[in-house]
């Protein structure tokens, strides 16, 4: 990031390749909507680009990045007053056959590489995540799927590290109950 601050355009390519999947996963697992996730993904990175000059090199980049993404998510929630989508919601208004749950199993279902069980698990996971407290869900997604250390998550959430671990512990316990037949 410092290199990008100093005018190295290619440095941003490295950043993107390193973090795009994690940011995408974090956003996607919050909204479970590809279009919306794409919009939030773009907004987040645009914000990051605009704020690049203000990045403090003494701070961890991942924490800074996820703080921006998280704030973007919160802002979008505030703006749209949207809650996470329900699995039982119809995919299109009036569409009684397909629900969001059907699409969530695999955002890239077209590639056909994933097994039906994985799709099922993904769908069930989303349902289970919906039931979680938002903070617990956030900790779980960031730690489980995005690999952020608990210290960074705590920094992001503005709470002690042990609180983040406690949230994770509750999230795991709840998910284990929800996904018992998969485990």
């Amino acid at each position, binding site marked *: 990031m410092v290199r990008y601050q100093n005018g190295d355009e290619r440095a941003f390519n490295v950043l993107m390749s390193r973090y795009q999947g994690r940011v995408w996963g974090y956003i996607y697992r919050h909204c479970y909507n590809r279009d919306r996730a794409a919009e939030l993904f773009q907004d987040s990175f645009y914000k990051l680009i605009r704020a690049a000059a203000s990045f403090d090199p003494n701070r961890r980049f991942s924490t800074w990045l996820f703080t921006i993404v998280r704030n973007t998510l919160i802002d979008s929630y505030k703006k749209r007053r949207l809650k996470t989508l329900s699995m039982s919601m119809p995919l299109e208004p009036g569409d009684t056959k397909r629900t969001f749950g059907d699409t969530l199993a695999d955002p890239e279902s077209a590639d056909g590489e994933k097994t039906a069980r994985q799709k099922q698990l993904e769908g069930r996971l989303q349902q289970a995540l919906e039931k979680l407290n938002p*903070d*617990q869900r956030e900790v779980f997604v960031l730690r489980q799927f995005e690999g952020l250390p608990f210290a960074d998550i705590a920094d992001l959430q503005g709470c002690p590290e042990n609180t983040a*671990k406690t949230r994770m512990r509750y999230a795991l316990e*709840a998910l284990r109950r929800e996904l018992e037949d998969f485990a």
Partner: protein
Amino acid sequence: MWDGAEAPTPWMCLDGLGMSERNDITGHEPDIEVVDYLYGEMTPEHRAAFERRLQDEPALKAEVARLQALKIRLDGLPSSEPPPELVERVLAEAHAACRRRERQETGWLDRLAESLRWLVRPQAGIALAAMLVVAVGIYMAREAKQPTRPGTPEQAREEMRPLPSKPADEPSAVVPALPGMAEKGAEQGDAGVATAVAEGQPEGKKEGKKEGKREGVGAGFAPVREDASGADLHRKAAGDMGKDGKAEQAAAEAPAAEAGAGDFRSTSGTPAEAGGRAGSGSTRRPGCRGRGRGAGRRGRARGRGCGDGRGQAEGRCSGRRDESGGGNDGQWWSRAGVGRRTCSRRDEGEGYRERRCGSGRGLERHRHAARLRADQRT
């Protein structure tokens, strides 16, 4: 262990779920060491100690095993990637922003060069040369206007002869010249006396007389120089005193010439640059206001904005009246005011300021006075 997890968070507010963080139905304190163990956030020593504990606690071991199985299942889920076109768009924006930033950082030099580029055009050179010529011309014209003609005292007296009185309809000072004042003043040169008396300020009257006389005596009948110098002295005194808030004293001591200056200043009540310089403390003296207004009216006729102080004018007004008595209706004595107005200039031996301050007549007179002063110095 449970450290403030119930605290409200943005997510809770937004989702409105209000669900408790503590959604563990068992209600027991969670063992966060399990989390550290599962996600490898333990030191080797800590990990070894935890594994020993697992051996001792089968229930904990079973729970860890279940969670580990779940984690393995979840780890197997493929991670999704953003659409490539989306990534391309973001990268394009990042590169564009980088270039914009570079342009901003180096752009000011380009902009400066661009803004100065016009200087190399021939029209610009011609314009600059023309401006230079005009500036030199103005300077030389000013130099030519400097009083250079030496004058004898007789010439000066002749030139300093009072101008005709102002028209009756012209607004004048509050206090009219007293009968016989002109003659008396002409003889004594202490116009300030008359004004002070007329204004009915006992202290000022007394002091004014004293000062005025001194001035007048010194001036004699070729009072231009003497008056001027006396005016200088008193102007200074009045100014200083006025600054100190000794308005009354200042006013009383202000001689005619000084008062004349005040006359100018107290013109229209609009702020004037010189207002503060003239010992405006005299505004605190209520009794002077009437005079100040009178003087102001007069000043207004000359179009000078003076300022804040009617009172400011008052001391000088009375003085001016003195001078009026001594000289004429104060019109040409206002040159003294002009002189006061131009005190700094006066020291330089030129009377330009009065052109702006005073009437044309006053200007002429004062110009001679300044010339004579300059002669005297030399």
